[in-house]
């Protein structure tokens, strides 16, 4: 009843205001004869003093202002925030950090200098940021960019990387600290209740040589062959997370073999990637194939970052990943995509000293996004994903997807469809003409719902 009375009162105001406005217009015109101005005359812009009311008009009638007052009071802080945001963005646009003009030729405006990015430390790392500084030290055919990057998160994850990126050779040295990685035990049937965490510290130095068939502009055919070698040392330690116990409490056997033990490796491998996906605003057709083999071998003492005595497990990891898709409705494509991945690790020597961080894993951004990162660990992992992308608006699209996957001791003998876990989700993606630029979504599994977001680097 009260609501009805309120709406009736509003409608009454509005309709009376209409009468008032038309009366006002008539009265207003009495004092001024505009008809002369419409006589055939100059086509040039007027220089006369423009017609104006005696005082600045309000965009709303009094009754509208009164009705909107509560909302206006609430949104005043937002208005101030908007003004500040506008001022900040104007500065960034003026400085060129947010481009509003045509792209400057790449040789004159590469992504050099200081920049701030997402931390890139994985889904478990939490909210954070990375600061990166890049400087070109050689140009021309031997173009080389020196870079230094530091990333940190509120969960106290951090990573440091110093690199020299050239063609075809790149060098790097890095250090990572991951204080609360999750571990639920080995095997796909590890119960959710056995949630533990561990910390791992990694230090590495290595080189990669890569050859590409051609640089891609936005997206296009590309074949890439790369080979790398890296010396690395890792130490697992007591988990720093407070929401679960440290891994050695629940898994004493694994803890005894790995806790505080320095493991050193010489890692070398090669990979080939064939990619002929194409299309905008997301890739709409084509396929991609990735073949990768990586050996984690005993360290060479003179190359080791520490003393070279802490041998870990020696094993080889093979990975095959294939992705394809097709679309319909050319003007604003609807796309169906399929992805399959098998990760296979050999048992190798010293398997009892295999660090948890070296195992194949599922959960989070690496697959089965509805589960926690690191939810499943074992030697091998299998993953399949189906995605359907469709447009919502010119700048929005939706990606609904479902994933099936599992970890196994030996995927080639143990894998069965009935053992796969399922995760499904939807991601809202903000897109530009040339591709998606940001995303936010949720993924659900039998163990819960997870929110994910990304800014840039989506495809």
């Amino acid at each position: 009843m009260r609501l009805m009375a309120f709406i009736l009162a509003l409608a009454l105001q509005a309709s009376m205001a209409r009468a008032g406005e038309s009366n006002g217009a008539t009265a207003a015109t009495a004092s001024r004869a505009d008809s002369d101005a419409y006589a055939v005359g100059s086509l040039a812009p007027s220089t006369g003093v423009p017609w104006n009311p005696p005082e600045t008009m309000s965009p709303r009638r009094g009754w509208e202002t009164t009705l909107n007052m509560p909302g206006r009071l609430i949104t005043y802080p937002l208005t101030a925030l908007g003004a500040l945001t506008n001022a900040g963005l104007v500065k960034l646009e003026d400085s060129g950090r947010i481009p509003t003009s045509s792209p400057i030729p790449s040789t004159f405006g590469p992504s050099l200098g200081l920049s701030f990015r997402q931390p890139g430390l994985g889904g478990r790392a939490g909210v954070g940021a990375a600061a990166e500084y890049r400087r070109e030290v050689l140009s021309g055919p031997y173009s080389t960019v020196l870079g230094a990057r530091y990333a940190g998160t509120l969960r106290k994850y951090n990573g440091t990387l110093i690199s020299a990126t050239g063609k075809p050779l790149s060098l790097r040295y890095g250090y990572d600290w991951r204080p609360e990685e999750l571990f639920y035990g080995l095997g796909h049937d590890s119960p959710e209740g056995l949630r533990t965490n561990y910390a791992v510290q990694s230090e590495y130095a290595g080189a990669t040589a890569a050859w590409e068939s051609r640089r891609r502009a936005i997206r296009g055919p590309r074949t890439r062959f790369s080979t790398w070698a890296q010396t690395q040392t890792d130490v697992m330690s007591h988990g720093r997370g407070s929401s679960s116990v440290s891994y050695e409490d629940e898994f004493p056997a694994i803890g005894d073999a790995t806790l505080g033990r320095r493991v050193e490796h010489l890692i070398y491998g090669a990979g080939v990637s064939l990619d002929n996906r194409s299309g905008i605003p997301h890739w709409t057709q084509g396929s991609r194939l990735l073949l990768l083999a990586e050996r984690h071998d005993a360290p060479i003492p003179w190359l080791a970052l520490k003393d070279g005595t802490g041998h870990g497990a020696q094993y080889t990891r093979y990975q095959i990943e294939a992705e394809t898709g097709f679309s319909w409705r050319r003007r604003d494509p609807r796309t169906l995509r399929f992805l399959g991945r098998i990760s296979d690790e050999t048992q190798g020597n010293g398997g009892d000293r295999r660090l948890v961080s070296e195992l194949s894993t599922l959960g989070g951004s690496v697959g089965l996004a509805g589960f926690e990162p690191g939810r499943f660990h074992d030697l091998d992992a299998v993953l399949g994903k189906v995605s359907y992308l469709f447009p919502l608006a010119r700048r929005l699209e939706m990606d609904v997807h479902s994933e099936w996957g599992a970890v196994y001791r030996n995927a080639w003998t143990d894998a069965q469809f009935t053992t796969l876990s399922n995760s499904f989700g939807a991601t809202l993606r903000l897109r530009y003409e040339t591709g998606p630029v940001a995303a936010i979504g949720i993924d659900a599994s039998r163990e819960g719902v997870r929110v994910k977001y990304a800014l840039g680097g989506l495809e």
Partner: protein
Amino acid sequence: MKRHLLLWACCGCVITAASFVRIAVAEPKGKDSTEAKSPKPREYSYVYDVMNQSVFRPATRMFDVGNLARRIARSPRQAANVDERDEVRLPSTWWQPRIGYQPVSVQDMMHGPGPGTGPAPGPWTVTKAKAQGVTPGFQIEDTKGAKYIIKFDVPKFPEQATGADVIGSYLFWAAGYNVPENAIAYLDRDQLKISPKAMYTDAKGKHHKMTEAYLDALLTQVAREPDGRYRCLASKFLSGKPLGPFKYNGVRSDDPEDRVPHELRRELRGLWTIAAWVNHADARGPNSLDMWVTDGGRSFVRHYLIDFGSILGSSAITEERSYATGEEYYLDYNAAIRNLVSVGTRKAEWEDVKDPNIPAVGFIESKVFDPVGWRPDLPNPAFDERTQRDIRWGAKIVAGFTDEHIRAAIAAAHYTDPRATEYLTRMLIERRDKLVNAWLGPPSPMLTGAK
């Protein structure tokens, strides 16, 4: 309960009484001399404008109780600067009655924005890199000292953005708006000299002295003629002092001659009709410019529409314009809900439109064109407040364009492909007729639901 009703009724009476406070019209207090003080230049972020018009303002509008009441009562607020004949009160620093109000010959139109001859022959001195807008370009000074902004086409769409910009300047001038003088020009690389003071800003915000290598690299990104020259748009600097863009709502508080909120201005609300006609989907604040001019013995702010490179479905970037241009906002929540509910199976009308596949012509068509529901890329505050009276005001102007006006404006784009000229002419004529029939013809069921 009775007490509550009484309270509401009292509130209603008080508010109603307040709303009847009339605005007495008197002579404006604007200073009538060159001593008037120039308002401060202001800037408006491109990115913030997108966020504001796509997200913040629609959200605010949704919770606008006064607006809701007006919609329930079907009582939209009419334009505030009109007389008893429902015409714009003059003089106006925004608009001058031309086509639709007085005879404007084709010759008048072609000389209206300026002679249209472009920069003088001879070397052009590059003075600065172009700071805003998506098309590649720079600023130059010709041998006579006249300054121009030079804009190019991207290689994928030669003649498209430059042609649209020239056509737009003639059509919007003839429609009554203030526009810059635009012309198609051709330049040889050897013709360019770099001013010692010329600078450009890189992606990290660092300023660099402009070099020949920079210009060479920039020119690799633009369309080139078969004879090696570069076709460009030369847009002459407006006279006066630039004050930054105007907004399509509110007023410029430091301009004493700006007392009518822009969303209540007939010239800006009625611009919707003209924008719909030429598919000016980029009609938004940042594509406008206020200038502090001294003219007719006084100094004042004159309001300009600039940058028509995105009209006629033209794309100034490397990807073609969406076929949904003019049909949906960038973030069109109604379309998003429909698509979400249908899980993408819904097919919009524009998805079946035939593309002329002429590189010089962007996406513009007349079959699916909706003369009632046309939408720009971003919601525009003045367009959002438009009423049937505003649209009819604009339709009267559109109706004034003869086929000859349209042909002459398109001829100024100097398309090398005759199909481009023919197609655009046909589209503008058909769209004009559709608009005029919808708004000035006999009552049409299409208008049901329009405000």
